[in-house]
């Protein structure tokens, strides 16, 4: 054995091992460059959050003097105390929770219903309806600011919880996601249930929906994240500070009541608290967020 393995190496020209060594060195070098790039950009993408956390725990003069340093000196909870004592933060938090929960429940339910109907049920006007859903996908949100205000005004929903919640209860993208998913489920299962005499709704609710768990989780996460972060809608739906959600309150804190350039620990702390729920969701359900890439890796 030893003879066999040694043998080819002996007559080989000296160039060969050197080329292999060169290649190994080049691989090592390109790996180092690769890691350097990754670490640099990880800093670029994460350090702002580190600065945010650090400075929210500083005193105001310290934050002003050492904005780049992540370490508070001295550590101060004054910013957070003032968030709860001096601003309407608890109220905004409550409003955001309420809106987010209702919108998420509504979207998951209504979007699944519509997605199922568009994927599976044969009814007149289905093709046209689906075309309309696709068209609606293309309507840009920001051009709807004035239009939404007009409708809410006409319906008497302006400045109410209904105005904050109802317009967001369904979204075309969610319908689209659910339709695509239901189409990937084999028909045979539900046809069996239907032949056994289950109603359309019962088949949907007890047979098909439980099979759609991955899509439901995706939609729940997207809806939660979307409605938690939603800003422009709350801007045109309500005016009463008692109805402000977190993003709205935060925007008001920055541009309105406190003005610019002051109280950074407080502002950064409030922004941090508003980010935490989505950050937690992201960490737990990370694989649903970045599923694309994972799936590709499994296949590739």
């Amino acid at each position, binding site marked *: 054995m030893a003879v066999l393995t040694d043998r080819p190496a002996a007559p080989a020209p000296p160039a060969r091992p050197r080329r292999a060594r060169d290649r190994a060195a080049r691989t090592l070098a390109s790996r180092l460059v*690769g890691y350097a790039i990754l670490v640099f950009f990880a800093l670029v993408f994460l350090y702002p959050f580190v600065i945010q956390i650090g400075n929210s725990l500083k005193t105001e003069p310290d934050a002003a003097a050492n904005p780049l340093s992540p370490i508070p000196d001295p550590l101060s909870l004054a910013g957070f105390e003032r968030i709860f004592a001096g601003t309407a933060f608890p109220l905004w938090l409550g409003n955001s929770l309420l809106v987010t929960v209702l919108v998420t429940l509504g979207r998951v339910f209504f979007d699944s219903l519509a997605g199922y109907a568009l994927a599976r049920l044969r009814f007149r006007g289905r093709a046209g309806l689906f*075309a309309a859903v696709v068209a609606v996908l293309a*309507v*840009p949100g920001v051009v709807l600011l004035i239009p939404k205000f007009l409708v809410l005004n006409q319906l008497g929903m302006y400045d109410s919880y209904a105005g904050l919640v109802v317009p967001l209860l*369904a979204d075309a993208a969610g319908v689209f996601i659910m339709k695509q998913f239901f189409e990937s489920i084999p028909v045979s299962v539900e046809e069996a249930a239907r032949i056994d005499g289950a109603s359309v709704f019962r088949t949907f609710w007890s047979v098909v929906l439980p099979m759609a768990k991955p899509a439901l989780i995706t939609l729940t996460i997207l809806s939660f994240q979307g409605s938690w*972060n939603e800003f422009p809608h709350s801007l045109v739906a309500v005016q009463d500070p008692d109805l402000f959600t977190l993003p709205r309150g935060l*925007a008001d804190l920055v541009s309105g009541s406190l003005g610019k350039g002051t109280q950074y620990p407080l502002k950064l702390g409030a922004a941090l608290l508003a980010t935490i729920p989505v950050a937690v969701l*992201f960490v737990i359900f990370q694989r649903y967020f970045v599923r694309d890439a994972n799936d590709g890796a499994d*296949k590739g």
Partner: protein
Amino acid sequence: MGKRVARGVRSNENLAGWLFVAPVVVILGLFLLLPILMALWVSLTDWNGQGSPFTGRVPFVGADNYTRLFAEEGLARRDFMTSLRNNAYYVAIVVPTQTALALGLALVVNNRMLRGRGFFRTAFYFPSVTSSVAISVVFLFLFANAGAVNALLGLLGIRGPQWFADSRGVLHLLLGAVGVDAPPAALAAGGPFGLSWWDWLSGPSVAMISIITLVVWTTSGTFMLMFLAALQNVPVALDEASTLDGAGRWQRFRHVTLPMIKPTTFLVLTLGLIGSWQVFDQVYVMSQGEPAKTTLTPAYLSYRTAFRDFDYGSGAAISFVLFLIIIALTLLQRRLMADREPAAPRRGRWWRRRVPEGG
């Protein structure tokens, strides 16, 4: 036989189908389609927000709100054209930068020899899921006069500008650096739509650069994931074959990888184009269109005209022009994607496939 059974079972589906879609139809109809029609009407009136815009007492002004944006000398046209200029420069920088950065990050994260790719992918994507308002607050602090960005520049020996107070255009600044401080006579006046050529050629302002930085930072992660998915669909064999043929790294990227991910590149470019004409939250929180209106964008201008100046007619007209710009870009995207898709393997995930059948 099978068909007949199916029809029997499906007999009640017409009613069920409509019941199932009813909530979505009502909500989208009431809050998406109806509002567009109502706003179209309001854009033809002089409604000031008092009472209902749908009574006979609201003056009908026809296309006046539109002609004031394009044809008549005045503040309305000046502001609108300024906002278009600002947004055009914003798009011209944001779209190529975020696309290049996203592709670059995807290429590195896709490198099989590197460990911890999952962590880095997550790190790059994280800013994309956070609240635009909360992030804007952080960037206000980073770009403050004595903020982290200027502290960092200070370490490099550069005195950073007062970001959000600096209305100078970067092209003007570059020209200033080579000694051209005042506009040459030919550019000082007489540009199209009431802005001088010199004004059109300002480049984005220093203040806008900070908003651009923020947006590139938040959107690159999303587009990186799209590129990553595309890269992972490039057959490994193809890459290996070209390596054996003696292709270098750059050649392989240029002639193998790039053509394979072309559809995704188009998607990212056009989604970026569509998205960046809608910039609003960041402008609202960070600059409110200031300084000297250099961060004013059509989306923000339309909001401000309606809700701050109570000129709902003009505001709605601005929205409609913006609507047309974005719809044109969307149609362009669908046309391009429809042309390109059959050529490439369609293996995107079901919820990312933005262009469904018939689209």
